[in-house]
């Protein structure tokens, strides 16, 4: 692409050369690490690798065992519950907070900082603090009981039926602030005239949000969704720090199953099979959507 006076069509490969050179790190990451690493994982999920990866193929054995394992089933169920609730609650809470923040309020900076600061803390810290607050011996429950309501029971982390909601409380605490920020940013990007038009037309505020503003914020919601969803699939540290998967196996999640079987049980094959199942699920949901969303569109 230099200033040389050539009249022929340049070689396909040389067109946009700087851009291609600049994108080499991205291409390498995409192909070698993400694609290559994934392929490697999938291939080795058909082996009986233990501590070290070894190409000793055993067909679908690892997968059969995986789907026979009660812990894996519980993990999948937990991820589904945690994922669905996180998506719904962080979007709803995030949006409500963002909408409130968008009302020309006083102390906006203070409120925003308060909502956002947990995001600066790691999941390990988040898990620890909430483990503590939710501990019935000296957390919320004991405080309420000390106030006189002695039959009060609030021990989500020690009740297998609701433990995943205890994790959810902590997860939302950490992540909603970012969602609020993203959506607030989206709200600020909406043309002022839209609000004027809606007011002139006498549309109630909640209806304006629901039917006009939210559909207009589709791109922001998509970015937000990518960030939340990728966090949900990877949830691991939070559970480890807060419950270690307990009580029993009641709060296990897939990423923890993968990690425990890879490194604690030293059964790489099993861990890889589990991660392959995770990847397949993600791929089925994400790939078609991602390609429609990010690919194929031409800029003129």
């Amino acid at each position, binding site marked *: 692409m230099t200033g040389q006076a050539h009249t022929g069509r340049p070689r396909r490969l040389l067109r946009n050369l700087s851009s291609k050179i600049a994108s080499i790190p991205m291409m390498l990451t995409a192909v070698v690490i993400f694609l290559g690493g994934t392929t490697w994982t999938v291939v080795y999920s058909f082996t009986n690798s*233990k*501590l*070290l990866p070894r190409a000793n193929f055993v067909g679908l054995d690892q997968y059969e*065992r995986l789907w026979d*394992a*009660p*812990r894996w089933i519980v993990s999948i169920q937990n991820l589904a519950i945690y994922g669905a609730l996180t998506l719904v609650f962080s979007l709803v809470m995030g949006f409500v907070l963002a909408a409130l923040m968008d009302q020309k309020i006083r102390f906006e900076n203070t409120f925003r900082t308060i909502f956002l600061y947990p995001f600066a803390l790691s999941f390990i810290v988040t898990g620890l603090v909430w*483990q503590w607050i939710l*501990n*019935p*011996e000296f957390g919320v429950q004991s405080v309420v009981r000390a106030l006189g309501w002695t039959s009060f029971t609030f*021990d989500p*982390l*020690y009740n*297998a039926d609701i433990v995943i909601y205890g994790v959810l409380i902590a997860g939302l605490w950490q992540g909603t602030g970012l969602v609020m920020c993203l959506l607030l940013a989206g709200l600020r990007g909406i043309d002022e005239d839209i609000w004027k038009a809606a007011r002139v037309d006498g549309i109630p505020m909640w209806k304006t949000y629901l039917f006009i503003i939210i559909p207009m914020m589709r791109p922001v919601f998509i970015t937000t969704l990518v960030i939340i969803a990728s966090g949900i699939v990877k949830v691991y540290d939070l559970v*480890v720090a807060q*419950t*270690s*998967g*307990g*009580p*029993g*196996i*009641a709060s296990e999640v897939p990423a923890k199953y993968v*990690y*425990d*079987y*890879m*490194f*604690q*049980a*030293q*059964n790489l094959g*099993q861990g890889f099979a589990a991660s392959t199942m995770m990847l397949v699920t993600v791929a089925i949901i994400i790939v078609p959507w991602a390609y429609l969303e990010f690919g194929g569109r031409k800029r003129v």
Partner: protein
Amino acid sequence: MRFMAAALAATVVLPSAAAYATDLEVTHWWTSGGEAAAVAEFAKAFDATGNKWIDGAIAGAGSTARPIMVSRLTGGDPMGATQFNHGRQAEELVEAGLLRDLTDVATRENWKEIIKPASLLDSCTVDGKIYCAPVNIHSWQWLWLSNAAFETAGVPVPKNWDEFVAAAPALEKAGIVPLAVGGQAWQAAGAFDVLMVAIAGKDTFNKVFKDKDADVAAGPDMARVFKAAEDARRMSRGTNVQDWNQATNMVITGKAGGQIMGDWAQGEFALAGKVAGKDYTCLPGLGVNEVISTGGDAFYFPVLADEEKSKAQEVLASTLLAPATQVAFNLKKGSLPVRGDVDLAAANDCMKKGLDILAKGNVIEGTDQLLSADSQKQKEDLFSEFFANPSMTPEDAQKRFAAIIASAD
């Protein structure tokens, strides 16, 4: 005695070491107070040889430290030495040629003779070659009881498991959790193994875990163990803690009647200033069947290109097993030394009970040695679920247990 031992250690290793003084990075997951103090004894002894111990401590055994160690090894950036669970877990690293053959050092220092029980060295042996240096013996089979708790409940301190079960209602009435079991999975699985040896005996234990006999695992002896586990589950309700030492703390403070935990728990009692026999009672083999397991910790030495560091590795290996180091280390760690020829005069009552049983040869191998990490993990998953979920029947659990044994390698 300490001075003597140190001097002895110095004379053993100094001559060969002085010429090869070098830094050696040692990774391990002993990070708490008592553990760190114990490691410091190793470091002190190693530094005394003129080399330098570079400490690479990472808290959190299996989940955190292991992937780091394995990554360093496979990534071609090995440390000088590393703690690892010996037995089945390191086999593959040995087979991959990543770990160093210590047979020369072992022969020179006559490990075969001095290491007791011999099963410890067997766990380090692959194809007749020795790959690790065992440093201590930990036994699991202890029931720790709080004398104060039983006093509060108005019942005598039990002398065995059955009495303990019988005393449970009284404890509960007094608002005391009879049996503290921490939430982490390994604690439930460990407690079950202890119940198994105590109730079904050594033979059943070996048939199930050593021979992987699924029929025995599904049989009537094991059914009794599962019944006992159900008792334990009922007695453990109300233990709202995760870590084992928090559970131990419940016993120490009299909030719980007892805990099934390994010998490392007595470190906690000692730290809290409690005296065995007066403040707390320890029942090896749950007071039913006085057998202890001989698991423990070991150090492995990766293959290094640097010749001087390789020499230093040999010095470290022999330092770890030197009598003086063994005494100093194990007293701090609360574990038993791997050699029978050292004097543990400073040991407390419970430790002495353990030493007696060890001397009698009433030992079994630890489950870490007998089962692969994979089977161990499956077992943990099962018992952690069993202990947390009262609706799971002992029969169901036994069925799943037998299936795990059947598929174990």
